[in-house]
């Protein structure tokens, strides 16, 4: 086999292993290590989700940030698991936690994967589509949202989201959004430590209203965010630990 072709085959193999849910062990290459990495982060996230679960009476944990419950410990573990970008994603309705890292890049889109098979695709940090969540955001047309949010100015624009309905047909949701720059806040978590402007995005459609928030630094990077997926899934809190 000639060298380039061998490389293609090998990449195909390793990438597939890397994104599959369980088998990370064999083979070698960058993508495979990402797979192993996801698994490690998954373990970390499992600890984290224990801590994030609301208590029975809804009151905060009295012990505060002790031992495994200390978010700093979880973050440190996650950072240690990988040298590359890593994020914790929390579904706000259920407090379910996913640890994710990039598994694919195509033009301006970056797809992040979890060890348990979920996928989120972002454009410059703005959620473009989701997979494996159930009522997924199948695709979107969000060019103006992306440029407004990352340039940190006030704006209004339309977003188009595409979902699958109960019979599996594509349905488009069009919402009108206004974006407002509010205060500036320091974001310090994991390997991230920067000042960020809090951008509040309010969107309204025929039967739906949702709010998103983005912490955007001076270079237009979204450091953390809360972004709406669909009526069923609600908002995801996306916390980058290392960009």
């Amino acid at each position, binding site marked *: *086999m*000639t060298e*380039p*072709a*061998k490389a*293609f*085959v090998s*990449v*195909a*193999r390793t*990438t*597939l292993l890397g*994104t*599959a*849910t369980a088998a990370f062990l064999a083979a070698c290459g960058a993508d495979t290590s990402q797979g192993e990495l996801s698994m490690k982060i998954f373990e970390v996230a499992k600890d984290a989700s224990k801590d994030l679960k609301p208590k029975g009476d809804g009151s905060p944990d009295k012990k505060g940030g002790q031992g495994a419950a200390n978010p700093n410990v979880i973050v440190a573990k996650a950072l240690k698991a990988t040298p590359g970008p890593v994020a914790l994603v929390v579904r706000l309705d259920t407090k379910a936690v996913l640890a994710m890292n990039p*598994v*694919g*890049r*195509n*033009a301006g*889109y970056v*797809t992040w*994967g979890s060890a348990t*098979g*979920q*996928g989120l*695709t972002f454009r410059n940090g703005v959620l*473009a*589509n989701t*997979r*494996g*969540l*159930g*009522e*997924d955001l*199948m*695709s979107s*047309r969000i060019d103006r949202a992306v440029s407004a949010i990352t340039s940190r100015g006030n704006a209004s624009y339309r977003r188009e989201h*595409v979902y*699958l*309905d*109960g*019979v*599996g*047909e*594509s349905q*488009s949701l069009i919402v009108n959004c206004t974006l407002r720059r509010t205060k500036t806040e320091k974001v310090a978590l994991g390997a991230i430590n920067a000042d960020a402007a809090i951008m509040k995005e309010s969107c309204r459609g025929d039967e739906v209203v949702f709010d998103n928030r983005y912490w955007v630094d001076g270079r237009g990077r979204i450091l953390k965010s809360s972004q709406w997926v669909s009526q*069923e899934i609600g908002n995801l809190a996306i916390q980058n630990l290392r960009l």
Partner: protein
Amino acid sequence: MNISRVVFPKLAALGLAATPAVADVGTQTTSYTIYGTPGLIAMPTAEVATDSELAFTYSQFGPNASGTLTFQITPRLSGSFRYAKIADFHPVVGDYFDRSFDVRYRVLNESKYFPAMSVGVRDFIGTGIYSSEYIVATKTIGDRLRLTGGLGWGRLGSYEPIGAIGGARPDWDFGKGGTLNLSQWFKGDFAPFAGVSYQVSDKLTVKAEYSSDAYEQEVAAGVMEHKTPFNFAVDYRVSPSIHVNAFYLAGDTIGANLVIRLNPRDPVARSGTEGAPLPVKPRPPRSNAQAWGTEWIADPTNETGIRKAVADALGKEGIKLQSLALGTTRAELKVDNRKFHSQAQAIGRTARVLTHAMPPSVEIFAITLVDNGIPLSKVTMRRSDIERLEHAPASDILNRVAIDEAKPRAVRRSEVVAVEEPFRWSLAPYLSLGYFDPDSPVRGDLGVKLSASYHVAPNFVISGALSKSLLGRADADDYTPSSNLPPVRTQAALYSAEANPGISNLTASWYGRPGKNLYSRVTLGYMESMFGGAAAEVLWKPVDSNLAVGAELAWVKQRDFDQLFGFQDYDVVTGHVSAYYDFNNGFSAQVDAGRYLAGDYGASLSVDRTFANGWKVGAYVTKTNVSAEDFGEGSFDKGIKISLPLEWALGTPTRNASSAVVRSLERDGGARLRTEGRLFDWVDSGHGDALTDRWGKFWR
């Protein structure tokens, strides 16, 4: 056997997330009567159920019981099929089991000042126990209150009639049932009825009505008294899909019903919980001339390696790579999708894998869908489009692909890449429900089934199943000879009694592509529990056509009751010419004309409402040259068919479906050979309409 693998109660137990669709015609309800129809308690209203809602109702009042299936066929039209037990109906016969059909139609939708109006006909084709017609109006006041008033004829005109049309209601000789009582409609006495419903909370609705039904037959039979025309009920919503009603009838009888509401538009489980697909891997820039070179084609080990990598990757997705041929700019694949209900999803996942495995010079992906070793259609796309449109709406890539007729040649064993173990087997429990003679209620049969298959070639399979009933099978005492025709179907009880274990089926099936747009099947062996022999079928179905035409010819012999290898004396040549048409508006029809198992000639018509997710709800009638007397009760064969894709119920991708046929009554006339692998269904699922209907999952 009438209903197989019934999973409805299980589905309901999971709790449906029923999100009401946008009201098309207004004045909708979730309230069902004791007869399992949308309405009050025993009286109808002008309300409709949500479009495409399928409701199963079991009612018990006093000693009477009934089970009803109601389907909202269109936003305005709904139909019901009912199987009822009327206790001590007849001094000699005793309990009476009755099957009846209803239809109702919304004539006028509610407006600010005018009520909604509907007309309906109850029990118009059975033996006429419930025969009645009505005109009814319903007005909504505020958010919670609805008032209903109407006029009823027949049974609904039996209490305190206020007038009559055309004198006395004409007698109707229902004979063996199954004929239309058109001459009676809206004739004779008519009486007013009225009612009110009030929604107390999301979960609780109270209902009261003034009934125009005097319950003459029940009173005469002594099973109830009619003390007052007023009926009362409460409707409690246990979950979005389950309602329970308790009611008090005629000041005398209490009863209750359970309603399970399903809607093909509201999946039990949200789909899409399967793992995310592999991201598309874009190629390096054109400027990287070395990567884009074509010299790799000169070394055949490259093709072997790529083929293996693609086969492995697709195998993990549940897709079997049948063949892969490479050119410097083109990859031609045949894939057998074993997992995804959406063939488009299988193609999308295949394309994603190819972006990782193919050298950059390969620009065209031509993916042929294969089922039973037979190519069904070829989807051709540009890799550049796959790269460019990965994150765009699925309709964008649909506009860029070509769906064409696949080369009409079966997959050869020698070309298969992902070679599988040719022998497969499984052992699984089964549950079948059915009734064996006209006077016996539904019966369940629970057992285990051992199935095995051997693939001689991709398009040639030998398969069989051995069944052992554990509980509830009929015995020979249940059989009463009652047919003037050759007993081709009415001896089910004898088979059930003697065949345990029995060979349910054992056949060799060979599928082919005799030419462009043509598909073929030859089946030899024991095709079904009661018949075995030889059958051949051919189907003409262009990949993008709404019309398909097919023909089947079979010579079959009746099997011994022990369901082993022996045959009885009766044999018959049977066969049909069939036409299939998809109206592209959610409805499809099929006509089969030919000779049936009892040697009778005739035709069947079936009309289905179909949904993109694979649900089908339909009705069929078969009329042959058998007289109503010879056919027996019901006069001719008719029934309801439901097919439910398991993906809808489970949320995880699967190509399996659960099908049920509810016959009004199975007799010997108009009976068709049952054989697996009939061409239309599986060929159609790989053709243009099925692909585009489910295209939304291409990128999932």
